[in-house]
């Protein structure tokens, strides 16, 4: 099963894609993914219900978040009410350690994203703050990466022994599925996604040309 683990909809300040249009696009253009995770910036969208769209288009649509820390941006999979109560998702200066510890305590998975990117990527901060504890997975393919940013991410992952995922970081419809992650098992809900990530059996994919 292939999921795009990093997408934004109009719920994000700079997102310009409606979720329905993502679904139409995936099916009409035969984008080789089976679903996607909406990781809206600095928030968790607890209210939107995409289950009918998921059924209509035969796609897995899940929700996570993208928060901001001193090590850059971090995807969070497995957000629960209890996790939401532990830190302010809208804070742009969250301590990564706090996010990592909160995720560990509440069964969620933190994944630093676009780690090769200037300032908002983890690699730019490892020299200053050291290698953070508790990170097991980073995003090594990001659809919005500029020159060499993915290479930097992969090198960092190799050097530090991290596993890699892929996500498009789509903000407009036509960018969905540029990068994704393949899992051996079928995933149909967030606990299954968390379980699959925890099993550490997945492969980052890029479809960028």
């Amino acid at each position, binding site marked *: 099963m292939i999921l795009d683990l990093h997408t934004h909809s109009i719920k994000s*300040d*700079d997102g310009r894609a409606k979720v329905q249009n993502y679904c139409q696009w995936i099916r009409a253009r035969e984008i080789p993914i089976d679903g996607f995770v909406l990781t809206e*910036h*600095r928030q968790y969208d607890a209210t939107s219900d995409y289950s009918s769209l998921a059924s209509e288009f035969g796609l897995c649509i899940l929700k996570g978040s993208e928060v*901001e820390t001193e090590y*850059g*941006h971090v995807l969070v999979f497995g957000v629960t009410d209890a996790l939401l109560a532990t830190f302010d998702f809208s804070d*742009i*200066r969250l301590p990564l350690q706090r996010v990592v510890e909160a995720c560990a305590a509440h069964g969620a998975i933190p994944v630093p994203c676009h780690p090769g*990117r*200037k*300032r*908002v990527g983890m690699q730019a901060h490892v020299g200053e703050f050291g290698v953070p504890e508790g990170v097991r997975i980073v995003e090594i393919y990001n659809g919005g990466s500029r020159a060499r940013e993915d290479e930097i991410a992969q090198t960092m992952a190799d050097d530090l022994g991290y596993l890699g995922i892929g996500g498009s970081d789509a903000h407009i419809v036509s960018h969905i599925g540029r990068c994704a992650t393949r899992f051996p098992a079928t995933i149909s809900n967030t606990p299954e996604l968390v379980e699959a990530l925890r099993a550490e059996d997945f492969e980052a994919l890029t479809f960028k040309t």
Partner: protein
Amino acid sequence: MDIEALKEEFLNKDFDEQSFDVDADDIVNFALACGEIAPRYTDPSHPDFQAPPTFASSFHAGRRMPEGFPKIPGLGMDGGKASSLKHPIRPGVRLVGRTHLHDIYTKTGRSGPMTFLVMRMEIYDPDGVQLATADTSVVIRERPGK
């Protein structure tokens, strides 16, 4: 900086009103420079001559910020524009633009911490008919080393 307090005090209150006279030559030069080839934007003798749909984004408010709004240090840049057109803008009509602060938020990007101020100008004709809305996202980037 307390963003919520700033929102409470400043959002959705008109802080500027400005008049604009639209000139046919400026429309033509604007359109041609952008690569427009449709005669209704490039030929003043065309019966439907009008400004290109994004022309409204070029109007400047007289005041950049509401009175009393705190100065945010950093390099200000244009972070985005949104233009909505309800009716065409044509030359020879005095327009009025009323501006308010529509949103404020912070985030971090490739250039570091940033504050976004979204200004919304609503543009009216002399009869009070709204022709267009133009949003500008001003992004203020903290200078490196801050």
